[in-house]
């Protein structure tokens, strides 16, 4: 193994760059003064204020509804799509369609979906955000499951069919259990992404059902709000837990395709 040498400097700089801003927010969330400028003592008060903030609670409930629905929809559509592409399709154009929503800039998807909903004469609300989030969710689940399919042995399914199991039995007793870690990892990632997604929700949401990121946006636009620090700390903790769980399930450090 070659040694790290002077490369420790840029590596350390990147880690500091990525984590110091978050650390500042976490420290500030316990600061009694509520400002990032002076430390006036330890408090849990901002977390109390946060729990009493009706706007944030409404946003949180809306976000959880969308994230749960988007995860369920994406898991079903994405898993079936990944298996279908793996088994039957040798055409890269369909692979491109399946990965497209994961690559397309969010603002383009956002205005496209807004235009679609307007064309259909749909009213906007949580249901339209949900439909929109299933688009990138499906692409994400399909990508994660497809990566796993590359490492599975098709002879298990064939053996099951040869031994007399029906296609449905084989799917639920062989295929799904084999893919379970990838499906769960994909679900966790969609849930996280949907919970944090702002741009598409901003365009496809109605005025009366803000999701949590939209509430945060309206708060940070007016500068530094101490409760945001507390909220940030909770969200960071939640996201880190979910993403690390997903990483453990797929057994990769993010280097896989």
């Amino acid at each position, binding site marked *: 193994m070659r040694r790290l040498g002077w490369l420790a400097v840029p590596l350390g700089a990147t880690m500091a760059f990525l984590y110091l801003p978050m650390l500042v927010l976490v420290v500030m969330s316990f600061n009694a003064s509520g400002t990032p400028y002076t430390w006036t003592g330890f408090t849990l008060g901002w977390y109390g204020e946060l729990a009493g903030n009706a706007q944030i609670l409404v946003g949180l409930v809306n976000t959880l509804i969308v994230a749960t629905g988007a995860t369920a929809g994406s898991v079903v*559509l994405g898993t079936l799509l990944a298996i279908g592409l793996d088994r039957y399709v040798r055409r890269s154009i369909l692979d491109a369609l399946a990965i497209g929503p994961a690559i397309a800039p969010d603002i383009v998807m956002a*205005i496209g979906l807004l235009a679609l909903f307007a064309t259909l004469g749909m009213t906007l609300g949580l249901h339209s955000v949900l439909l929109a989030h299933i688009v990138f969710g*499906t692409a994400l689940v399909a990508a994660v499951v497809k990566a796993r399919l590359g490492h599975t042995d098709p002879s298990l399914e064939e053996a099951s069919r040869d031994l007399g199991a029906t296609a449905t039995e084989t799917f639920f007793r062989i295929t799904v259990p084999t893919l379970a870690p990838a499906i769960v990892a994909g679900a966790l990632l969609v849930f996280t992404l949907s919970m944090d997604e702002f741009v598409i929700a901003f365009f496809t949401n109605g005025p009366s059902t803000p999701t949590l990121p939209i509430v945060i946006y309206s708060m940070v636009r007016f500068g530094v709000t101490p409760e945001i620090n507390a909220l940030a700390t909770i969200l960071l903790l939640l996201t880190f837990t979910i*993403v690390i769980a997903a990483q453990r399930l797929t057994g990769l450090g993010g280097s896989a395709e």
Partner: protein
Amino acid sequence: MTPGPVAPARGAPRRRGLTERVIFLGPGLLYLVVFFLVPLAIIAGISFLERGRFGGIVFAPTLDNFARALDPIYLRVLTSSIGLALVTTILALFLGYLTAWGIARLPRRWRTIALILVVLPFWTNFLIRTYAWIVILNSQGPLNGALVGLGVIAQPLELLYTPGAVVAGLLYAYLPLMILPLYAAIERLDPELREAAANLGATPIRVFLTITLPQTLPGVIIGSIFVFVPSLGNFIVPELLGGGKLIMVGNLIRDQFLKARDWPFGSVLALAVIAALAVLLVVQAQVSRRTATTTAPGA
């Protein structure tokens, strides 16, 4: 029982019933066509239509929206956004390359941990990450406090609401997307090629330019696309860290759709972002094909 079934099963023809195909592929493809392809088609279509007097769309074909994008006012927005996105990409490339190289030199166990650490911020709330920079860059914030405290500067600097703040925010947002493909490219490098070149007398710079860089070029381009394109379409960072003084293409698109209600012109601007993405993807495909052929084993 003999452990027989595996071998004949693999040779047996697969059951590829039409019903199964429809069940597996149908729902997902249908969904993506309706909610991904159709919206893109609508955007492309709208861009050729006229804007109605009260914000709607009039079905009268026109190219005026494209001509308007070349108006000096909008052209300046386009060029300044491309400039900011480019500066962000170059900084990300520089820092990302060295970081990815450093990660590739860590012991295997630590490599995984370092990669997870790089990815984690990317999954956290984007608004929170941007908000952190409002806190940090504030004239009374920790960065100014540290600089004054260390005696580097006498007076707090106006860091917030500057182009530099926008670049910092974009770099913070997208640096992980640069590091991952670079790491994937660097990890695949064959160290013996570099050693051979060095043994034959090539200077480290020459080794880098003639061997390492060409072989990692696909990673460089993918990382650059992942940083450049979303930077171009971002409207949150320019608004929150640029203080509204800096308008990027993303802000312009947002305003055409939600404020000015000029959807046709907004669609043209969105098409410009898609066009940039498409051009870069084609370049990437070309380069990775060339790299694959020149570095194929035995070639």
